């Protein structure tokens, strides 16, 4: 009797405990997304915020993979390769994440890439554009198939920039000679090779001088004077680190030669205030969506939510990778839903390769978040871009979004897209002192 009473009491206690106690937290309750990248930079923040908005949207819709909530954990790379590798290890070994979204710069992504291949964690890069990583996926698919890059690789960016060189720099402006000024980084070196091998011969533009400068250069006057002494029609700047220094000194010195190229500092809306209002006349290549880029309805809605959530906290307009992170998250989780999760890896990879978010504006293709499949050949360059975003580098850009646009800063602080023509809403200009 006593035994039965005790047994009943035990059952009752267990029942009461199970009803009153909060459910134990366990990894199985949430899906963990790991962010890897810088916490402090505008570009890093763009990826974080794009990811956060996507998570809010997915959680608000009832969760994912059977109603589970998504939890975001973050690891700071400080834009340093060694920190990046440690961050990737942390996300896998301590946080045990299901999926990683990256706002890493090229060198950092290259650093953790081998760790990714070891952990076999599905990973999406939103900022890195180094074609060397895509080539690794092409050449050793089984090892790197968990990697996706939803920004057009630098080779694709350069190909469209060749068209800009031919159509605008050579044809419209009549420019035939250039001095290339590049920072001493792997990224800039790669871009220079493309300019030398493709832009110059195809656009019939002669490179008069190639100047490589240290990224810690503080005084650009001798460099600009050296460039101007060659009397080129224009200067092509390749700058991704401390880009405001060459840009603002170009304006302060009123260098008597027009300048265009790649200037990462000019990608954000804060460039105007950061440059003290000295950015007029600067133009730069940019992946999309960029400043000055006309947003479709869906992307405009994303931007409205971004503004409501983050207000005046910089960056007040997300860099292109903020949009990429948002759409990339939707891609990744739609693929996971069909695959039944991020594991087994092969199933998720297969579904991710089938992902295709097509965004139209005024009835025509405007943006596309899909990926090149293994073995698929891009017709213009006749090469594979496995797991790179499905860009289109030939007018009328109806197979995907263009790999890049050229944006122009004007002396009143406004910006426009000036190339390609389908997306252009402004004109290419030289600075006021050269008009």
């Amino acid at each position, binding site marked *: 009797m006593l035994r039965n009473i005790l047994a009943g009491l035990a059952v009752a206690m267990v029942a009461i405990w199970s009803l009153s106690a909060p459910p134990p937290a366990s990894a199985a309750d949430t899906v963990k997304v790991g962010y890897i990248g810088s916490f402090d930079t505008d570009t890093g923040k763009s990826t974080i915020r794009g990811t956060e908005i996507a998570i809010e949207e997915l959680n608000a819709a009832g969760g994912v993979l059977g109603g589970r909530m998504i939890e975001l954990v973050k690891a700071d790379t400080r834009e340093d390769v060694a920190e990046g590798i440690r961050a990737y290890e942390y996300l896998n070994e301590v946080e045990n994440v299901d999926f990683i979204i990256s706002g890493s710069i090229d060198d950092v992504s290259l650093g953790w890439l081998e760790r990714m291949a070891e952990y076999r964690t599905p990973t999406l890069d939103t900022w890195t554009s180094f074609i060397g990583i895509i080539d690794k996926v092409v050449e050793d698919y089984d090892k790197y198939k968990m990697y996706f890059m939803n920004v057009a690789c630098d080779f694709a960016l350069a190909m469209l920039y060749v068209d800009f060189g031919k159509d605008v720099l050579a044809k419209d402006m009549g420019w035939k000679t250039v001095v290339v000024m590049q920072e001493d980084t792997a990224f800039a070196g790669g871009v220079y090779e493309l300019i030398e091998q493709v832009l110059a011969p195809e656009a019939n533009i002669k490179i008069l001088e190639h100047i490589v400068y240290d990224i810690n*250069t503080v005084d650009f*006057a*001798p460099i600009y004077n*050296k460039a101007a002494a060659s009397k080129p029609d224009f200067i092509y700047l390749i700058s991704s680190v*401390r880009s405001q220094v060459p840009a603002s000194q170009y304006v302060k010195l009123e260098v008597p030669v027009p300048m265009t190229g790649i200037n990462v500092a000019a990608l*954000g809306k804060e460039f105007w205030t*950061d440059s*003290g209002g000295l950015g007029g006349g600067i133009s730069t290549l940019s992946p999309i969506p960029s400043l000055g880029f006309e947003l479709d309805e869906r992307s405009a809605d994303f931007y409205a939510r971004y503004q409501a959530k983050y207000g005046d906290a910089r960056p007040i307009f997300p860099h292109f990778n903020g949009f990429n992170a948002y759409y990339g998250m939707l891609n990744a989780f739609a693929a996971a839903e069909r695959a039944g999760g991020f594991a087994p890896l092969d199933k998720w990879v297969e579904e991710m390769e089938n992902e295709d978010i097509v965004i139209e504006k005024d009835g025509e293709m405007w943006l596309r978040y899909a990926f090149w499949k293994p073995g698929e050949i891009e017709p213009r360059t006749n090469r594979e871009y496995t797991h790179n975003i499905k860009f289109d580098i030939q007018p009328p850009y109806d197979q995907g979004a263009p790999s890049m646009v050229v944006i122009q800063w004007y002396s009143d602080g406004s910006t426009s897209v000036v190339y390609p023509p389908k997306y252009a809403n402004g004109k290419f200009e030289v600075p006021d002192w050269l008009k």
Partner: protein
Amino acid sequence: MAIQILIHGFLLSGLYALIAIGFTMIFSVGRVLNLAYGVYIMLGGYTYFMAAQEAGLPVFVSFILALLSGVAFGLLTYELLVRRLENNPVAVEISTLILAVVMQAAIILIFSPSPKSMWPVLRGVLRFEEVSVTANILLATGVSWVVLALLMLFVRRTHLGRAIRAVSMDRRGALISGIDPRNISRVTWGLSGALGAIAGVFFATITQLDPHMWVFPLITAVAVVIVGGIGSILGGLIAAHIIGFLETITTTLIAPELRGVVTMALIIVVLVVMPKGLFGKEEL
């Protein structure tokens, strides 16, 4: 090409001399390497930015505010850190380096890590044949020469300046003569902060503001002090010109990316061949 090297070499040297001189003073008087010196430069730049560019105050007023920020931070560094550790130069060096890193984090917190460009103190561009020169860097060079001349006069002709020299020569002897070395140290740290802040305004308007901007001037100052010789204002001035011209020649004639390498190589050569520097002595 020669005129380009001459003009740019001269202007860059002036800026380097301005950057290095406050650092030299501290070492000569206090016998410590103040690794927070770059922070005075950074504070000067940010204070000027806030005053002139954000608050719209007149240039002169902004300049004075920047200078005062350098003085205040120099004095605070001395009172809160250096005075308490003055018998342990290694502890002073480590603590000033940590202070610089803390200040960098504070600047990131307040202003974000993004770099900012500043309007020049003096606007305009002058052209000499094919060489473009901003009025701002010409002004920086002019200010550098005036500041250095005034400093030399101050150190050699005024009672306080002579007291500073006395402490830099023999601290105990100065004390016996009725000079309070602590008061002299306060003046020196305040003055060093002021000089750093003045350099910071020009350095930032010529280059840019960013939370890591304290590193390059610190390296430049160390290079100038090592090459010129510890404790020599004149030596520092000459070393600044050697380094400025060497970097300009490297940039113009060899390769811009080697400019820093040449300076480092010069430091190694001087350390091996003339460890006391070109004009090294014990006092100012």
